């Protein structure tokens, strides 16, 4: 979230699209209700199904799964055509006026630079035209034919209301009603908040779905302001923390990226990550990359990371090919290229696409270690549970170790919520049985492995042997100690320019500005610096005082970065530094300082007249309507059909689906077509359950006991399916047999002139736990991911459905 949960109440329009906030985030949804009641906000829901969120919406419109980009590109077209954009904001804070290189183009569904053989782009033409100083050229009158504004206008021109309706199946009147509501927030004092979640990410064009909405928000001047923003409602209580701390195959803590094979030396690595401002005077966090990196290496290797060994750069792994995401990992596992798997806090048998493939892949492992508080499907993948898990234990040689762990309520620690708050939590109960903390288990594995390396040597023992492990209890480091390590401390007395000591050796740091690149500071995660200071554990603060009753309580927990609650808050004020919305200012320029209820984006002394852009993560400091080379499939979003889709791509039939997506051969072979599988399916969760955990909890099992799918009345009638009757739902990859909920909430959509049926598949049931046994939605889902993130396309695929009888247990 760029904003906070509480801030939603400041919105004038709440758009829930690509998510189902009321069901997946019922507690946070209180702020939507608050916005409606206290702020007169309109709630708009766009979803293939009439959800529980839709049940309290002012306007609902259906949409075919996987067509959000068409819908939102149409919105952009509407805003430009009707001139309903916030001009001053767009001119000052976005790259609308920057001029794009000659040679950039888009034709028949492809941007310039496409490489057919590798399904990827040479992105060099996707950039600005630079002047002699290396700064981007601009035309703020938007007259230049290659300025971003004009290129964008041309790009979205095809998305007429007729075209949107033809692609999305959304009735035109509903669509235009929603366009008008969205457009109403282009007024400087009005804001729209975009609440989304996996409904946008779980597509082969997931990242672009979100980008399209971000562009809408930039045009409306809704980023950085109260009640605005792009608000990703995270699906797990600490999934934000997972990305913050870099638990992805190519990431490091604090959104630093792991070196690649092309960066054999520390200096080449530093050079490719060097921040080069694209506009004069632009500042950015990333200009401190070296400080963050060196401090991280000091946290990791302590004294062993020195200037003369390039801060142990060589001990870090180098990525050889893009991402080792889950789809690749399981493809490798299925091919025998991975033969050991430590599965911590994950349940791939339920959570990853194409369960049949997952089951097969796990069966090829030599060993599988599952660390989980619960008995998961993954840990029992080898066991025959009847039709819901038809395994043959005799043919599986995988040795499975189940290591029971504590759950969040059985340990101290911190969780990062969607609003980037680090909230400390305290242990409430002892863990049952032999459960141990993840820290205890990981430490145990580490100590044993280090001992083996010490005794037996190995190919490359240095990264293991030199790891710094100076904890009070080496066998189980205390969470507070780990939190302090992430925050960082001074390793020697830190002095300012005059030679005065600013931070004494050993003291905890107050903020990342104190980090140094000379090895005198250590910090495990620079964005967390300031979370645990000499003043104490800032994450444990519980002062709910909200000075302006505007949803910002600066002394409640701690928010990264630097306790900033609303990202890009500089953009909440106009060029002169006055709030766009005087009723809800966040920070304002008082003549000498930025002051207000939040921590400003950049140094509070930077004058408005310096024209430093508020989007300080970007080299031009501006919100990007044109993404340069940051996206795999193009600098502008384009509608591509899901990999399994019943429709042609009416915009460019030759390029149907995301041309830059990575698809493994075996997965491509497992795609179904609309002849055999004529119906669109989409998966989702229900409010009664949290993923695959709560089926183990009796109360949740009572509230939603048994697997079912949702089907519209028209299709049900066609197929002779009765309310609550048994159905067989199949995709190219598998079959599930469950009950049908015949509902008025899913109606056939008229897509390109033909009725298209959508079937909803909730994800929660498996073969362990208290609830009744289920097959699991991922039995059906395709193994293809978003071209940028490899998030699997769980939200749009093809199935067939038939009436059947109850499965024989």
């Amino acid at each position, binding site marked *: 979230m760029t904003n906070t949960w509480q801030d939603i109440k400041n919105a004038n329009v709440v758009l829930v699209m690509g998510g189902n906030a009321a069901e997946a985030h019922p*507690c946070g949804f209180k702020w939507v*209700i608050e916005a409606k009641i206290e702020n007169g906000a309109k709630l708009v829901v766009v979803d293939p199904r009439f959800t529980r969120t839709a049940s309290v919406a002012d306007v609902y419109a259906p949409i075919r799964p996987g067509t959000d980009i068409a819908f939102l590109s149409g919105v952009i077209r509407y805003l430009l055509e009707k001139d309903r954009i916030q001009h001053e904001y767009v001119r000052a804070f976005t790259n609308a006026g920057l001029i794009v290189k000659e040679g950039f183009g888009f034709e028949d569904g492809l941007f310039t630079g496409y490489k057919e053989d590798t399904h990827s782009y040479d992105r060099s033409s996707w950039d600005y035209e630079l002047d002699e100083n290396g700064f981007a050229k601009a035309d703020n009158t938007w007259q230049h034919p290659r300025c971003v504004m004009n290129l964008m206008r041309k790009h979205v021109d095809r998305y007429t209301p007729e075209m949107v309706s033809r692609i999305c199946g959304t009735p035109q009147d509903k669509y235009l009603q929603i366009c008008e509501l969205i457009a109403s927030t282009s007024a400087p004092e009005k804001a729209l908040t975009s609440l989304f979640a996996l409904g946008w990410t779980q597509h082969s064009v997931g990242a672009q779905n979100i980008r399209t909405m971000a562009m809408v928000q930039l045009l409306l001047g809704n980023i950085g302001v109260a009640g605005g923003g792009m608000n990703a409602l995270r699906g797990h209580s600490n999934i934000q923390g997972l990305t913050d701390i870099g638990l992805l195959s190519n990431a490091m803590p604090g959104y630093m990226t792991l070196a690649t094979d092309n960066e054999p030396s520390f200096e080449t690595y530093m050079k490719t990550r060097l921040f080069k401002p694209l506009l004069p005077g632009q500042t950015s966090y990333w200009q401190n990359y070296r400080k963050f990196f060196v401090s991280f290496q000091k946290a990791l290797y302590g004294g062993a990371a020195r200037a003369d060994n390039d801060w142990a750069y060589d001990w870090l792994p180098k990525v050889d090919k893009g991402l080792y995401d889950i789809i690749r990992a399981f493809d490798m596992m299925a091919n025998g290229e991975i033969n050991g798997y430590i599965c911590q806090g994950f349940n791939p048998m339920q959570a990853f696409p194409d369960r049949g493939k997952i089951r097969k892949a796990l069966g090829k492992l030599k060993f599988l270690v599952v660390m989980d508080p619960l008995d998961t499907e993954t840990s029992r993948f080898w066991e025959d549970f009847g039709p819901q898990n038809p395994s043959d234990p005799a043919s599986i040689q995988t040795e499975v170790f189940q290591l029971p762990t504590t759950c969040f309520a059985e340990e101290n620690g911190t969780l990062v919520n969607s609003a980037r708050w680090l909230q400390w939590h305290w242990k409430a109960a002892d863990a049952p049985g032999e459960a141990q903390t993840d820290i205890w288990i990981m430490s145990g594995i580490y100590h044993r492995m280090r001992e083996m390396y010490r005794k037996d040597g190995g190919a490359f023992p240095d990264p293991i042997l030199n790891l710094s492990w100076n904890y009070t209890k080496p066998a189980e480091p205390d969470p507070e100690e780990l939190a302090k390590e992430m925050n960082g401390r001074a390793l020697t007395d830190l002095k300012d320019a005059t030679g005065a000591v600013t931070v004494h050796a050993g003291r905890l740091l107050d903020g990342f500005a104190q980090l140094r690149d000379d090895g005198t500071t250590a910090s495990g995660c620079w964005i967390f610096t300031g979370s645990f200071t000499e003043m104490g554990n800032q994450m444990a603060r519980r002062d709910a005082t909200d000075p302006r009753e505007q949803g910002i309580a600066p002394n409640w927990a701690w928010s990264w970065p630097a306790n900033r609650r609303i990202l890009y808050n500089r953009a909440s004020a106009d060029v002169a530094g006055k709030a766009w919305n005087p009723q809800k200012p966040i920070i304002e320029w008082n003549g000498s300082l930025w002051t207000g209820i939040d921590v400003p984006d950049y140094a509070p002394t930077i004058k408005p007249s310096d024209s430093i852009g508020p989007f300080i993560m970007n080299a031009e400091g501006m919100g990007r309507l044109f993404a340069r080379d940051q996206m795999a499939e193009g600098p502008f979003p384009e509608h591509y059909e899901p990999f399994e889709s019943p429709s042609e791509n009416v915009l460019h039939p030759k390029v149907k689906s995301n041309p830059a997506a990575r698809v493994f051969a075996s997965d491509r072979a497992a795609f179904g077509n609309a002849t055999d599988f004529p119906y669109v399916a989409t998966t989702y969760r229900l409010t009664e359950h949290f993923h695959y955990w709560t089926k183990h909890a009796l109360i949740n099992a009572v*509230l939603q*006991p048994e697997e079912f799918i949702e089907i519209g009345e028209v299709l049900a009638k066609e197929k002779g399916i009765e309310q609550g009757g048994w159905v067989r739902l199949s995709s190219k990859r598998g079959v599930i047999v469950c009950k049908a909920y015949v509902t008025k909430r899913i109606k056939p959509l008229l897509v390109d002139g033909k009725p298209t049926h959508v079937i909803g598949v909730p994800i929660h049931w498996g073969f362990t736990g208290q609830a009744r046994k289920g097959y699991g939605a991922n039995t059906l889902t395709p193994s293809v991911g978003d071209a940028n993130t490899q998030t699997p396309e769980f939200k749009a695929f093809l199935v067939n459905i038939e009436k059947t009888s109850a499965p024989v247990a």
Partner: protein
Amino acid sequence: MADLQSQDYIRRSASTMTPPSIRNHEQEVAKLIDVSRCIGCKACQSACMEWNNLRPEIGHFEGSYDNPHDLDPSTWTLMRFTEWEDEEGNLEWLIRKDGCMHCEDPGCLKACPAPGAIVQYANGIVDFISENCIGCGYCVKGCPFNIPRINPVDHKSYKCTLCSDRVGVGLEPACVKACPTGAIMFGSKSDMTVWAGERIEELKSRGFSNAGLYDPPGVSGTHVMYVLHHADRPSIYAGLPDRPQISGFVGAWKGILKPVALAGIAFTAVAGFFHWVVAGPNEVQPEDEAEARHLLHKGDDAP
């Protein structure tokens, strides 16, 4: 917990005497369920199960999100979902939290034959005192809302207590505390009525011209009230009665019939007694025996 609390009673089932009711200053409470804010998340249902330690059976999917499928002895509140289309075909998904309405004039209490098995406190809460319950099911017949459920194991009737144990110590009911969107509010009945008025105004401004408060006069009002967007037709909300009142049959049975019946019985008995006093017993006389003997022996003499 009968003793002290009994002084709060304003009504007590099957009791011909006025219950102790010295605590008459007590404010009437109400739970206000704003259907227009409810997202059907069932947090209220979970909270009810947790606070009251209820664990219904794990059921089956039965063609809707209503789980368990109905109220039962261990399910005191239940979200009921209705897919409703208006005359123009616009779909609304109406979600209503069902449970005891805590009527001001409770039909269950009226029907109950067991003294003190159902009581009403001065704050308006209608509570079942299980130790006095005899399991006859009359409360089920008395209730205009189809709420009480008899447990086949212990033969006691159960329903929402409005968390009388929590309210008694100044807390809100568990469902109110758990509701994430503020769709369930709790306070004095007058405050809740005022707040409902504001909500109704807001709903009218959003085009729900028939928005209104459900506080049915047929049962003299309730201590659980609904804000409905379509207050003109409550029954679209999973059969919420349009005009609930205690059934006329129950009224007759528990009203006029009781004195009339006892009087009838007493009258018959008394009439018999006075007949005895006036006419005396009807005894066989010696002449009767003689006549009979004569008749019987006539046959013997004949041949």
